[in-house]
């Protein structure tokens, strides 16, 4: 299951999906709005997506995770718009018979989502600055060399 939403992410509902009798392990990852980056203070984040493409990319991520690991549930939800401090911008819930698969798939999904899904974060700093985040030399070079796990074009 994948979803883009402008509402707060309901983690409890994702856990309920993941807790199936066939599963013995559930891993839920939440990426949340952090107040401090070094000494700098964030007021809130805003997220924007190229929605149609982001949904396609998220579906590819789910399919690829299910191909790599035997998963009972694989749910990826990304929130768009304003995300206040401590609230989740992204939630990934995976379940599997044994915990190796759930941990590995959860980690792979968030890492790959951050590299491949057309969603952008805007920092709204307490000092008044507003700044789109467009990483990074690492990511940039990975794109160029094809080192990244990008869906085949």
């Amino acid at each position: 299951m994948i979803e883009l939403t402008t509402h707060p992410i309901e983690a409890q509902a994702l856990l309920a999906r993941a807790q199936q009798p066939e599963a013995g392990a559930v891993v839920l990852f939440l990426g949340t709005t952090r107040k401090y980056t070094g000494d700098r203070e964030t007021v809130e984040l805003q997220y924007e997506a190229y929605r149609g493409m982001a949904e396609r990319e998220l579906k590819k991520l789910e399919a690829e995770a299910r191909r790599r690991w035997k998963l009972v549930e694989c749910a990826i939800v990304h929130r768009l718009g304003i995300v206040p401090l401590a609230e989740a911008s992204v939630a990934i819930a995976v379940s599997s018979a044994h915990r190796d698969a759930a941990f590995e798939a959860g980690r792979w999904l968030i890492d790959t989502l951050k590299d491949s899904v057309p969603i952008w974060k805007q920092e709204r700093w307490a000092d008044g600055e507003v700044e789109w985040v467009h990483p990074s030399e690492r990511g940039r070079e990975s794109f160029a060399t094809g080192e990244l796990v990008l869906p085949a074009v």
Partner: protein
Amino acid sequence: MKLAIRLFAAARDLAGSGAVFVELPSDANVGGLRVALAAQHPQLAPLASRSLVAVNAEYAQDTTPVADGDELALIPPVSGG
């Protein structure tokens, strides 16, 4: 041909619009689109050089052809999550 390119995040802010038009020869590819975009919208040039291009909502390479009617988008380095 005249094609629209969708813009997001800092690219949208730089252009002041969610899309810009570029004039392209009819046998253009994504590489040609990049050159034309930077020439015709120089305020986008620095970010465009760091961006990918999507054709019909799929990541494209510079050799990917573009045709009238394609949905084109400039994809600056992503920062979701």
